[in-house]
């Protein structure tokens, strides 16, 4: 009897020990995952900073290489000697300077538009996205369109800009890498969430590829998408349709209507 009882007790303790051991192992594994996730966040942060720096460099280059020479040329036309010149020459110089200043204004406007699209600012995400897809469709090389099912309540301006940038980045990636025949955007709402889905029939990626690229040093654009999604407190899903004919990218974000 003693042996039987001892055996049973040993077995019970072994089971309990095994459960604890297994759990500790799982916790260790989870901690490793957490560490990896933190590293991923660090990569995203670095990518975001790098992206900002690249954007600043681009704007600086645009201003330095284009706006700078234009304004310098205009200044040359409007130098002190202008008053000593003949009237016809004066008029010619002023006309040339005016033309150069117009070019500079246009250039600065383009830079400003690339920072904040005016359609988005004035008319909202629906108009900006529809405009973007119309422009792509107008090229004639592929079928592109956007439909917003329910966008009666606009998102906050910051949210709209982030979503627009994500859509822009996704569309850019699709156009650059996927070679699609069509690309479509749909929007809908459900409870307190808003959804955007892009369909395309090119070469796409699925969630596993997205996660993999996010953990690697490659794919700066995807990291920007991930960091923007994080700022939005949303989620993104990369899927392939069961029929394997097209890819879907779904963005889920919480609705924060503009006041």
């Amino acid at each position, binding site marked *: *009897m*003693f042996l*039987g*009882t001892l*055996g*049973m*007790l040993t*077995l*019970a*303790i072994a*089971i*309990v020990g095994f*459960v*604890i051991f*297994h*759990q*500790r192992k*799982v*916790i260790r594994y*989870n901690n490793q995952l957490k560490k990896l996730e933190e590293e991923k966040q660090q990569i995203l942060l670095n990518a975001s900073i790098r992206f900002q720096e690249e954007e600043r460099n681009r704007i600086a280059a645009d201003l330095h290489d284009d706006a700078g020479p234009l304004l310098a040329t205009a200044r040359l036309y409007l130098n002190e000697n202008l008053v000593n010149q003949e009237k016809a020459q004066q008029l010619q110089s002023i006309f040339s300077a005016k033309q150069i200043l117009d070019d500079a204004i246009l250039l600065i406007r383009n830079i400003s538009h690339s920072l904040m699209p005016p359609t988005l600012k004035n008319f909202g995400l629906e108009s900006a996205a529809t405009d973007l897809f119309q422009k792509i469709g107008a090229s004639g090389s592929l*079928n592109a*369109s956007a*439909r917003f*099912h329910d966008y009666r309540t606009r998102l906050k301006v910051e949210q709209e800009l982030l979503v627009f940038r994500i859509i822009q980045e996704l569309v850019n990636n699709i156009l650059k890498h996927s070679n699609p025949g*069509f690309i*479509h955007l*749909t*929007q*809908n*709402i*459900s*409870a307190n*969430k808003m*959804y*955007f*889905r892009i*369909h395309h029939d090119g070469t796409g990626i699925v969630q596993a590829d997205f996660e993999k690229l996010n953990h690697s040093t490659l794919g700066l654009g995807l990291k920007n998408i991930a960091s923007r999604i994080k700022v939005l407190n949303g*989620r993104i*899903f990369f899927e392939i349709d069961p*029929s394997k*004919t*097209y890819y879907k990218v*779904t963005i*889920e974000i919480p609705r924060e209507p503009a006041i």
Partner: protein
Amino acid sequence: MFFLYTILIAILVVIGFSLLYIYKSTENYHSVVRAYVIIEYLLLTYLFTLYIRNTLVKKAILFSQLGFLLFCIYDYFIAKTPGLPFVPASIGHILLLIFIVYFFFEIMQEMVVEPIYHKAAFWISVAFIINSSGNFFLFLYSKNSYNDEIFKKQYTIIYTTVTVIKNLILCISILIKEKQEPQSPNQLVDIDLDSFHPIKNKT
């Protein structure tokens, strides 16, 4: 639930020992022990239905309660001389062991948020797995050897040791302060985002 169990068991123990040592009524004491075995099994298995998530196993536990109750009544009526219910107690312990082991199995399948030993349910399970495994053979042997004086001494030593260990572990379970588990993220809802899909529109 667990507190209900402890209160009921305490009341039954007080009644049982009062009958045995004050009123010297062995027959009534045996009846109280039978009630104790049934109530202990019913409450403990019900407690585990609260912990276990698999509905099939929950149903199995509820059926086992019914089966166990019927078996205890059957055992009471077929007993030639009224005595302690060693066979029902052994069966109760083995069933309880199975359910606790299943509960541990379920724990191992779950996503770990914090170590299991930070939960009261774990210490309750450990207490009863030790109690059931320690007393299982004891009750099996007791059916035939309980009247032997040497066996009775061994019985008292083993039973008391196991009960003390069980109670100490149950004390730990009471002292555990549990943290709230974070909500798991919702799945992507099924929403109409494909209605504008060109392929679907064509078909």
